[in-house]
């Protein structure tokens, strides 16, 4: 490849024309804040983790009473306990993977480590969506088989007023299904956008590096 060799020779012998920065110009640069992709990934990941943890805390008291009346309290107590252990494991894994991100790694290692952090958070989100969907489905099945109890409780709350019991139950299931579908759709859209914005280039480059090794 003559042309590349020629460029190589010229590249080294000739000084290319670059802005020559002085000490005084470089110094303020080290005080500025980074806007690197890692910073954004950590911010987004932490937001996701906090979001899902908050969500489990924000379930209103009234719904707890509601479950108690349906006789589901003990079940929820245990599910909650196990959930906290799993959440703690995820946070530990996230922290461990995040510590591994070093700009002094090789290019391939750095990319792999960043993707691993994202993967941990993804699994965390999948776990939460899965758990939510499962619980929703489980509760609805339970409601279905305990309709009379449900009607009694719903009548006690004045939201539904004078609507006949049958209609209340139908509306209740319809609302649950729609809310579930909307929530999952919204999350999928959010993820699609996030991936498109931040990680497309990194993933492509990582794939290419892996391809070289095959």
């Amino acid at each position, binding site marked *: 490849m003559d042309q590349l060799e020629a460029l190589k020779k010229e590249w080294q012998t000739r000084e290319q024309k670059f802005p020559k920065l002085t000490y005084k110009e470089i110094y303020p640069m*080290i005080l500025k804040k980074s806007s690197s*992709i890692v910073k954004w990934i950590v911010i987004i990941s932490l937001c996701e983790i906090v979001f899902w943890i908050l969500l489990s805390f924000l379930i209103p008291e009234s719904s707890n009473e509601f479950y108690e009346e349906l006789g589901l309290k003990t079940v929820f107590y245990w599910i909650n306990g196990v959930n906290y252990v799993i959440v703690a494991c995820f946070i530990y894994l996230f922290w461990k993977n995040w510590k591994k991100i070093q700009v002094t790694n*090789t290019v391939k290692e750095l990319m792999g480590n960043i993707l691993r952090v994202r993967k941990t958070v993804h699994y965390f989100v999948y776990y939460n969506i899965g758990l939510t969907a499962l619980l929703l489905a489980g509760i609805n099945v339970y409601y279905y088989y305990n309709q009379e109890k449900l009607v009694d409780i719903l009548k006690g709350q004045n939201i539904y007023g004078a609507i006949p019991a049958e209609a209340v139950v139908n509306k209740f299931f319809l609302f649950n299904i729609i809310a579930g579908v909307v929530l999952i759709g919204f999350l999928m859209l959010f993820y699609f956008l996030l991936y498109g914005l931040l990680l497309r280039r990194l993933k492509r480059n990582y794939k290419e590096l892996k391809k070289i090794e095959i």
Partner: protein
Amino acid sequence: MLPTNQLANKKTLTKELEHSFVSQLEQNQNIVHKICRLYTNDSDAHNDLFQEITIQLWRAYPKFRGDSKFSTWMYRVALNTAITLYRKSKRKVQTQNFEAISFKISSEEYDATVEEQLILMYDAVKTLGDIDKALVFLYLENKNYREISATLGITEVNARVKMNRIKEKLRTVLNP
């Protein structure tokens, strides 16, 4: 709380670290500029990337043990920033003249055909993907395959094979 004299000590240490870092970067800034020019298309993005590389270098600097040359250490951090960490700014303006100037001005007695070929070659390199660019860049900087493979995290043999493929790719770009 640290005692005051320890605190003062820490401050002088930081100052010394800052001073040695900035002066070394000042001396070796051309390496960073070359990477910025390869990975960006306008001077705004060039400066933006230079800024980000400086931050990343400074952050990693306390871990720089001096067991390799400062410049050698810089290649890895700077390339990592350009390829992986840097988020391209949205304002992308294709400026063709930008590189053309860079070769002409610095040479006093230049051969017009060599010059033209160089510019064509340079443009061809800029059409490559991020990883290929990094390989070509290290190659142009006269790094051997051991160093190239250690920077990218691939084996030496594969770096060689890949480089040969890139040369072929460049050939087809130049002689369609």
